């Protein structure tokens, strides 16, 4: 059943993860292993449990049974904010930014959070505004994601794509080891989708971070992923490179003809 590859340097490992909601069993013993430097995509039809798996991995909800390990440490019951401090970053299906604050304030909060996460205590200052270091980092981050011109706009007025970018900027500000992207291109136009894919690829290359994403769009998956896991009815039925998965007999058997991979 499992295609648990003996990867050289596993960063994030899920073993026999089970998660039930009151009336449904969502995850029935999921195993997967993400290696350092992977760009790992979890695919599967609606209702396969992708989002729940994602929540279990990030700590938004806890697994009922099984373990989640990060760099060999058990983080199964570790709350999300502590995982973030270990090096998790994530984005949401629908971009979640602090709507009533400006673009810039959003990033400031993320960067100051990063300062705290890494235990760097800023010099005690009486002034309310962020320290020069933080302002510098904000500037950098906004430049990188291309939002520098919209720094003083309230986040709620940003376009959908810009919100996604802002969210990405906030995740980047945390300098995560592993970036978890939940449907990073959901609801985007094909052009935006391509731009987003490129942005993610560029960031991944520049910061050399590990990426885990769930995605519907096969074009994005094959454009970004170095490895793919297929989730079906709460279990991983195949893992491998995109090409391997495409050729997997079981995957073909389950999927073909039944239009399950959404475009």
């Amino acid at each position, binding site marked *: 059943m499992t295609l648990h590859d003996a990867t050289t340097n596993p960063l994030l490992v899920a073993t026999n993860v089970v998660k039930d909601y009151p009336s449904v069993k969502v995850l029935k013993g999921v195993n997967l292993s993400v290696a350092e430097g992977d760009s790992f995509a979890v695919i599967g039809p609606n209702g396969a449990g992708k989002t729940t798996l994602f929540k279990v991995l*990030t700590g*938004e909800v806890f697994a009922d049974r099984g373990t989640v390990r990060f760099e060999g440490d058990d983080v199964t019951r570790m*709350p*999300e*904010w*502590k995982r*973030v*401090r270990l090096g*998790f*970053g*994530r984005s*949401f299906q629908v971009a*979640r*930014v*602090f*709507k*009533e*604050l400006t673009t*810039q*304030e959003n990033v*400031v*909060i*993320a960067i*100051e*959070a*990063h300062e*705290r*996460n890494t235990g760097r205590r*800023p010099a005690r200052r009486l*002034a*309310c*505004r*962020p320290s020069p270091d933080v*302002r510098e980092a904000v500037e950098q981050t906004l430049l990188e994601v291309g939002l520098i011109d919209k*720094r*003083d706009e309230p986040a*709620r007025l940003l376009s959908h794509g810009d919100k996604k970018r802002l969210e990405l900027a*906030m995740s980047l500000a*945390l300098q995560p080891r592993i970036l978890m992207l939940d449907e990073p291109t959901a609801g985007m136009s094909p052009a935006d989708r391509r731009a987003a894919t490129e942005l993610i690829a560029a960031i991944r290359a520049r910061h050399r971070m590990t990426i885990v994403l769930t995605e519907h769009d096969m074009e994005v998956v094959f454009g970004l992923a170095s490895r793919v896991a297929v989730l079906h009815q709460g279990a991983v039925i195949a893992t491998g490179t995109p090409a391997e998965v495409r050729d997997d007999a079981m995957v073909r058997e389950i999927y073909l003809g039944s239009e399950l991979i959404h475009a």
Partner: protein
Amino acid sequence: MMSQASNSTWKRDAAIAAIILVVLVSLPFVTSKGIVFIAGTLALHVVFGLSWNLMFGQTGLVSFGHASFFAIGGYAFAWAAKIAPGIHPLLLFAGAGLFGSLVALIVGILALRRSIGVYFAILTLALSQIVYLLLSYIPALGREDGFTGIRRPRLSLGFTTIDLASGNNYYYFMIAMCTLLAVGLWWVMHGRMGRVFKSIQQDAERAAFLGIDVQAYRLRSFAIASGTTAIAGALYAPWLQLLTPEIAHWTFSARPILYTLLGGVQSFWGPVVGAVVFAVLEYGTRTLHGLSEIIIGSILLVVVLAFPGGLLGGLSRLRKRMNRKTIVTARPEIVR
């Protein structure tokens, strides 16, 4: 850009504060004792409202039991001043505040673990009812007749000693203390911690995914707000020279909520405007015996219906509409 923006907020707020201070300081020279008494009480209510809004507007916590911390601070001060009259009054005020924070910390560790939103609101309501009932039962605290005989202390400052019991000294002392507390709250709200609070208020889960320990910061917000309120309560004790359990009653807990929502949640000045409007209403209807409830109730209702974002929210919407600079959204998005 950013520095300019916060600089201008700072300057504007400092200017408003200065005007308010000038008015408060000159009151004893130009009006009667009755008005001065109301103004002094109002200053405490302003701190009461501001601290509640630190939780609600800034951190997204709704407490229905804020008055219990006002009472805890007041009673703690009065009791300590009675059994240990030698302690420096400033230490007593600080002690009352710390005590309030400590109680909030203990309550918060239990209550904020899982229950937020309306549960936290009702839980704090339950706790405040317990405080209220206990205060009215404990003989050493004077039961429902109240803690009597609280003296206004003498304040030794090293180089000089001020007798707060004489003249308007206590009024000025209170205004100074309230200003300090309000400045402190302003500073918290606009600084690093304030930004964290604000992020939690907007989207707690998102904040957690930035590595922010949401519960710890909610706890901090609760403790700071409660401690500040406890100091306000401690200041109230020598002001009225009597404390009754009424100040722990839920109707008093409703006050900061009314102030904040009436004035406007988003702005720092919301609770201030709300408290002032309320005080004016009460003063204006004080001789309309039997009609005050109807008048105050109707005005509140009209304000809520006409300006659902509070008075300040309504004002800024009006201004925007007049300027026609921004596209006016149908209704201000009010965040919970």
